[in-house]
């Protein structure tokens, strides 16, 4: 019995998306990697065709779909060889903050744009001095009449250059407890005092516009607060289950793409005796281990998707999946390069890029060490 029950609507959606990506994304992914950014219009095209924010309700222009649509988008995007068009980040990580905690006014103002691709989003938690430890955030938000004044720096912000709005975690310096001091605010690009810094150069995700963001007495309306003041930490925690699940899905789907490529490679590439590499027992066993890793990962992640759709509390399991799947995908990509030998050095082949891209997955959205730390707490150790 399949763990995930896709309906005909789901399958049609997948086929439409697949066709779209084959035409509008895949042919350009190499260029975008070189450009170190994706064209802004591709977000609009994705939105216009209904592939962004599938979970947003129809009232705001969305599909009102279940999480299986998110899974489909995540899975199909994994095969595009680019990371700049980070649809799962926008649709399933950032926009849900707005969708769940935003006021009706904020939702009316921004959600239709998030769905249509006119509004690209980012979330700004990490700071130069605060990564794993959210209690050490330094960015401040001080109320001043009808406005809130935000000051501070954020770093490693995905979609940092192209974003039109950013959800910023900032603290009220008057509140002692660092967790209760934290609130989330929506800041529009172009607001005076909000500057996008330079794009950061990194090992992989070359088409992804990761950047620093600077807030210098940036004044926003008080109504741009998400949820209640002082609930920032709890809201972040509340959304982490889905974020970790999305990371696990991305890691797993990436490994699956790699396995397909490396199996095809091993069947065609010949060794010194003229036999395909896939006839070497060492290679066979390595491929079998990868396939087994992926099957195990697939079963676990599919189950978590099903549980998540049923709104079960799977914080422990998604944290486990996050560290396990991201280590697994790095294992699969790394071993693939070892099998390829010299061919693995050539960037024109896709697996080296995948290997560089995969490396960040065990770091972002909470390092794997933080996952283990959280799980140890949840296990009451």
């Amino acid at each position, binding site marked *: 019995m399949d763990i995930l029950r896709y309906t005909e609507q789901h399958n049609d959606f997948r086929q439409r998306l697949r066709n779209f990506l084959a035409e509008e994304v895949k042919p350009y992914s190499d260029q975008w990697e070189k450009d170190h950014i994706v064209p802004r219009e591709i977000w609009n095209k994705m939105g216009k065709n209904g592939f962004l924010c599938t979970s947003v309700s129809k009232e705001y222009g969305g599909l009102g779909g279940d999480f299986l649509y998110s899974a489909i988008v995540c899975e199909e995007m994994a095969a595009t060889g680019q990371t700049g068009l980070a649809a799962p980040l926008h649709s399933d990580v950032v926009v849900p903050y707005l969708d769940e905690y935003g006021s009706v006014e904020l939702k009316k103002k921004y959600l239709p744009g998030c769905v249509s691709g006119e509004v690209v989003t980012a979330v700004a938690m990490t700071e130069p001095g605060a990564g794993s430890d959210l209690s050490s955030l330094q960015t401040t938000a001080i109320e001043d009449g009808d406005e809130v004044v935000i000051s501070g720096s954020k770093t490693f912000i995905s979609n940092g250059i192209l974003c039109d709005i950013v959800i910023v975690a900032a603290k009220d310096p008057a509140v002692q407890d660092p967790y209760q001091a934290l609130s989330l605010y929506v800041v529009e690009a172009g607001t005076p005092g909000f500057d996008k810094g330079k794009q950061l150069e990194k090992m992989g995700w070359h088409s992804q516009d990761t950047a620093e963001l600077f807030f210098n007495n940036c004044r926003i309306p008080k109504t741009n607060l998400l949820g209640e003041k002082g609930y920032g930490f709890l809201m972040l925690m509340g959304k982490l289950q889905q974020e970790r699940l999305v990371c696990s899905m991305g890691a797993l789907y990436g490994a699956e793409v790699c396995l397909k490529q490396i199996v095809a490679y091993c069947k065609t590439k010949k060794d010194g005796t*003229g036999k395909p590499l896939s006839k070497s027992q060492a290679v066979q066993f390595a491929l079998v281990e990868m396939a087994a890793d992926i099957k195990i990962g697939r079963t676990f992640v599919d189950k978590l998707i099903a549980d998540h759709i049923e709104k079960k509390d799977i914080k422990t399991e998604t944290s486990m999946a996050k560290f396990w799947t991201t280590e697994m995908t*790095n294992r699969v990509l790394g071993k693939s390069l070892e099998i*390829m*030998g010299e061919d693995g050095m050539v960037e*024109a082949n896709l697996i080296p890029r995948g290997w560089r891209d995969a490396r960040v997955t065990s*770091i972002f959205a909470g390092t794997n060490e933080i996952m283990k730390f959280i799980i140890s707490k949840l296990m009451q150790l």
Partner: protein
Amino acid sequence: MFEFDKSQQQIQKAVKAFAKGEFDKEQIQEFEKNREYPIQIWKKAAELGFIGIHYPEQFSGANLGIFENVIVAEELCRKDSSMGITITMAGYASECILRFGSDELKSKYLPKIAEGESLSGGAFIEPDSNSDLCRIFTTAVKKGDSWVINGKKTFVLNGSSADFYIVLCQTDPNASIPINGTSLILVDAKTDGLSTADQGTKLGTNMMSMTDLKFENVKVPVTNLIGEEGKGYDNVQKFFTESRILFAAQAIGTAQGAYERALEYIKGREQFNRPIAAFQSVRHKIADMCIKIESAKLLTYESAQRFDNGKLDPKFSALTKIAATNAAMEVTNEAVQLLGGYGYMTEYEIEHFYRDAKVLQIREGNFTVLKDIIANTTIGKLK
């Protein structure tokens, strides 16, 4: 127990000072980005005697061993993996001339390498064959006083900047065992009929080029034969036995450099109101890195010493290469992780140590090729 003698300590100190003085982080990142060869630094390294240290003095070397070469490579890569690898590879495959070549070839080509006038490239692998080199399609036919070469080679490091190449050719197409019909031939880069094609960006060390070579009726003097005719494959394998030690040396330097950067970072980085170096999981990562680095170093030094004593076999060289490059891969991987987001950023250097470690691990014998060598030597070939 490996204790460096006085002269070795001095070499280590000198290389360290050179790397500290000449390697500039920003400049290295520019070289990498622009895929530009670091000409000045390479020339200076040669001037100071760090290239061809294992050549005899008459060929501008220091008459020292591979052990000293290992010390140089390790220290260079420790300061920067990409720059270190690039300089270490400046005279790549020139050992084929040194070990098997005629006196004429040695005096003509080796001093140029040691003096920083020439770069060399090893042209062994072919697009249609595997890195085990069991099938060679590039042919060299003797016509009068010349070899006439036709064929293609790939993965030639220094490909576009080398002044000459060491080329593995099939010289006897009728040899009952094909590898026994192969020979090594030196080809000057400027020879008519020889062309190069860039292989594009690679996973690491992009300041050093990598190209395909195409030979179309390339004519070189018969005296450009390196070693005996028919011994090409054997000699390349002997060369690999030597060069794999140097790969191991680059790997331990790369590992050491990444480790030192991570160690410094964790002491300074505070999260949860204490340095992350205070967390046991972080401390044990450091312990694991130490275990891997120290084990790999011992093997690498042992290999080098065995080579210098004329006792290094392909098995020990192969297992050293696997152990050292795996260690480098694992250590640089943990270093990236310890730096978190910074570990992924170009500015913090470790990400390129990680990529370079992968290249060291997968080239010149990946795990299947090397483990076959080890197993064949240990068990023998069985059907």
